[in-house]
């Protein structure tokens, strides 16, 4: 090996290092001018197609890209103009006439017309996976002119205003595509035509979803030029990225690390109620509805359920299972629904003595620390919980632990989601035949209108969404009545009565109201406010309104120093090793030849 070759190799490698170290700096100069809001997430959008998508992450992009017919106010979540500027309810409350905003345009410059509204309500309302059902009452949608939509319903339906959670999508894009294709593998063309402040311009699954300003947005021009949803490999990686400043905010932080995350430099966390809860479900299916159901009949003893409710310390469940990030539950209507919520009278504060007393009085006797029984029936229940949720497993263990104190035995059974779905939706001869005593799972509702959650325990939903199989004509009547009541105060009273009924009968013992957990860099974002609803809501107004994000201003914080120390270290190491190797070979080949014979 010649010395010249060695020098040449070393020079080449040095040049390589120089190039690598120099280049990322160049890259940063380029991107520095644009104001970009980077949001990190561990799960990303799978498909943007609104007909088949079914992930929560979609709403983060959709809610910036599209409007609803009637949007929600970020102040108190009440209905405010969306695509519709105003609306009018007929005296019989069965016809609602929407006036659309004049001159509004899609991001591609096409006008937004009543045809788009009709198409969206019609097609998304019936043929999509997550927007169907809202228009179940609708009998006709008429478009007398470009700016007017008349919706007629079978019965009065208060959801028409503030409860129609269906995005308005451009008919001129989707209408051309056959429905079969839309429901199969259609991918919306990019930029994704919309009406919100930002539209999706790039989507690389597993990597990035980029949204850029909608040039035709009718509102004020938002401060950030671009919003990126960046996909990380794990929730953990997202949090690390925030701490390092690679991203500016996390829409969905994790309960276990939430507190610690808030202690990081320049990181602020925000916890707000969301329209979802985690509940202990009891199998209340009647003989009539479910002749072949399998369960311990004792679960249908109301006193037993009430006693359990007293015995379970929901505060403790929250503190331990979700690290105190959730909110102790108070019935089927989460506190999130500020305009409807009232703390129920029967709130079951933690009181094991009372629970014991109730069971004693009801004749459920107990020997020592054993399980209570009456006439050979034991208070011993299966408690199913899905394996993928450590929080739910934890909650189940706590419920079991506390129930044991009052002589009620819960056998916690961790099963897969599929298994749990199977036992709760089992059918025999066309009738429901649930095969469980109790289980823990959760539900989520819509931003403003509480119907979706209240509906879960109506008789109608047996065979549908009902998983407690509760059936109470009074409750059903109240539900129908509130659904058609456009007067807020009257409706609120009806809802209060429904909650009271459900608290008495306890098909669900709501353990916790689940939160939005968000985190952001205080040095990168300013004008951050808790809203949706003010002053208790979340700072990003998730799934509800784009106003919060559109109002954010870029902060002073520096850009991330995307360092490549590692690769430089490796290259340096390789260079040193190669140099040493070459040197040794050169030395060996050149000098110091061994003597051939040794002197004696």
């Amino acid at each position: 090996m010649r010395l010249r070759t060695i020098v040449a190799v070393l020079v080449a490698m040095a040049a390589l290092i120089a190039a690598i170290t120099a280049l990322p700096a160049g890259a940063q100069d380029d991107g520095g001018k644009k104001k970009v809001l980077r949001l990190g997430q561990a799960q990303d959008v799978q498909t943007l197609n609104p007909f088949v998508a079914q992930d929560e992450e979609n709403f983060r992009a959709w809610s910036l890209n599209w409007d609803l017919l009637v949007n929600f106010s970020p102040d108190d979540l009440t209905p405010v103009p969306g695509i519709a500027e105003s609306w009018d309810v007929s005296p019989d409350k069965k016809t609602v006439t929407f006036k659309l905003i004049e001159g509004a345009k899609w991001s591609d410059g096409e006008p937004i017309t009543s045809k788009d509204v009709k198409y969206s309500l019609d097609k998304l309302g019936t043929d999509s996976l997550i927007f169907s059902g809202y228009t179940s009452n609708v009998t006709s949608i008429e478009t007398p002119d470009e700016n007017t939509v008349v919706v007629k319903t079978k019965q009065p339906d208060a959801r028409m205003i503030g409860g129609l959670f269906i995005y308005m999508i451009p008919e001129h894009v989707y209408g051309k595509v056959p429905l079969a294709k839309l429901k199969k593998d259609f991918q919306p063309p990019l930029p994704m035509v919309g009406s919100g402040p930002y539209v999706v311009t790039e989507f690389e699954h597993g990597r990035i979803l980029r949204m850029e300003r909608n040039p035709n947005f009718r509102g004020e021009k938002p401060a950030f030029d671009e919003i990126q949803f960046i996909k990380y490999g794990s929730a953990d990686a997202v949090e690390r990225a925030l701490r390092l400043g690679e991203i500016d905010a996390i829409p969905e932080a994790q309960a276990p690390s939430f507190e610690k995350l808030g202690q990081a430099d320049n990181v602020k966390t925000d916890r707000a109620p969301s329209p979802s809860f985690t509940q202990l479900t009891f199998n209340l299916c009647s003989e009539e509805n479910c002749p072949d159901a399998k369960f311990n009949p004792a679960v249908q003893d109301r006193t037993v359920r009430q006693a359990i409710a007293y015995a379970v310390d929901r505060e403790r469940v929250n503190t331990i299972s979700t690290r105190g990030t959730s909110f102790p539950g108070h019935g089927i209507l989460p506190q999130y629904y500020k305009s409807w919520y009232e703390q129920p009278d029967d709130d079951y504060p933690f009181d094991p003595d009372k629970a014991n007393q109730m069971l004693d009085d009801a004749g459920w006797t107990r020997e020592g620390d054993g399980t209570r029984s009456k006439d050979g029936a034991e208070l011993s229940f299966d408690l199913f919980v899905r394996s993928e949720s450590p929080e739910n497993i934890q909650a189940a263990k706590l419920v079991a632990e506390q129930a044991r104190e009052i002589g009620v035995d819960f056998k916690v059974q961790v099963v897969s989601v599929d298994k749990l779905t199977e036992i709760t939706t089992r059918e025999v001869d066309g009738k429901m035949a649930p095969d469980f005593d109790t289980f823990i799972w959760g539900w989520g509702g819509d931003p403003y209108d509480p119907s979706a959650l209240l509906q879960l325990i109506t008789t109608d939903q047996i065979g549908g969404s009902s998983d407690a199989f509760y059936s109470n004509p009074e409750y059903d009547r109240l539900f129908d009545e509130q659904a058609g009541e456009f007067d807020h105060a009257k409706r609120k009273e009806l809802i209060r009565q429904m909650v009271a009924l459900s608290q008495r009968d306890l098909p669900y013992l709501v353990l916790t109201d689940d939160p939005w957990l968000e985190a952001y860099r205080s040095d990168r974002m300013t004008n951050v406010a808790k809203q949706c609803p003010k002053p208790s809501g979340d700072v990003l107004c998730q799934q509800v309104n784009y106003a919060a994000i559109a109002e954010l201003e870029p902060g002073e914080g520096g850009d991330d120093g995307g360092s490549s120390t590692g690769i430089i270290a490796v290259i340096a190491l390789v260079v040193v090793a190669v140099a040493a190797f070459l040197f040794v070979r050169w030395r060996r080949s050149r000098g110091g030849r061994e003597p051939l014979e040794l002197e004696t």
Partner: protein
Amino acid sequence: MNPRWLAGKVAASLVTLVFVLAFNFFLFRVMGDPTTQLARLPRASPAEIEKLKSYYGLDKPITGQFLDYAGDTARLDLGISQRTRRSVWDEIKDAIPWTLLLVGTGTVLATLIGAWLGVIAATRRGRPADDGLLGFSLFTYASPEYWIGIILILVFAVWLPIFPAGQQMTPGEDFSSWFAQAADVAEHLVLPATAMTLMLLGQYFLIMRSSMVDVLTEDFITVKRAIGLPWDRVVRQHAVPNALLPLVTLSAIQFGIVAGGAVTIETIFSWPGLGELTYDAINDKDFPVLQGTFLVFSVAVIIANLIADCLYFVLDPRVQTS
């Protein structure tokens, strides 16, 4: 290369391929209830299921279904991902280069380092260097590769944060040039490739060592020394080329193990290859994708075996002429 020999090998591979296709078909169409996978609706009505069945040709006799399936597969129509609603082949096509990069880097490094260490150990048999290497390789061989990966993350991304812990490039970065992007990818490749290398290293080392030990006792090694060839050249020019032969066979057999490692290592490093695709498909019960990646893994192993046969053919003159 002898065309008849090659034709025979290819034919044998094709037969295995048909077996694999049949198995794949059986597994997903017969064992997993296709309608629930296809509909993926919690409770589809019997009429809807019938419609779906006829749409997907499930009402045909089983042989017809199989032929349809084989035909579709040949046209790379592997169905549609339930998650992303993209064609499964598109998903796989996007993932393959990343897996090849990771697996390729890992295999090449493991072969080179394993062979090199094997030579060192074999030429220092019974000495501390040999014992140390033997212990090290047995340890890496017995330890789960994803555990090694997690430890790498712990050490090099958490305690000593010099390498990124996941993904193939810095998320959201706009690269100014192809070169900057390549450097970024290289940086992200370091830890997963190291994990992959460590996973394979032990096997390669052990095989190379024992193969070298065998070769070094051969007569021709003494002959080479007797003609005055320096020891290091004897090792390099004669012992190593002979000892490498078993390693070639091994790398093909290893490929099945590599596929398993790809799943776990890509998962912990969020490396967007076939492994992560498989992992996501497991979690989301995205059976068309799972079926697709399984097929690709199987075909890859068949191809790897074929390549190894060819390579052996090129490397070992004894096979060429007999």
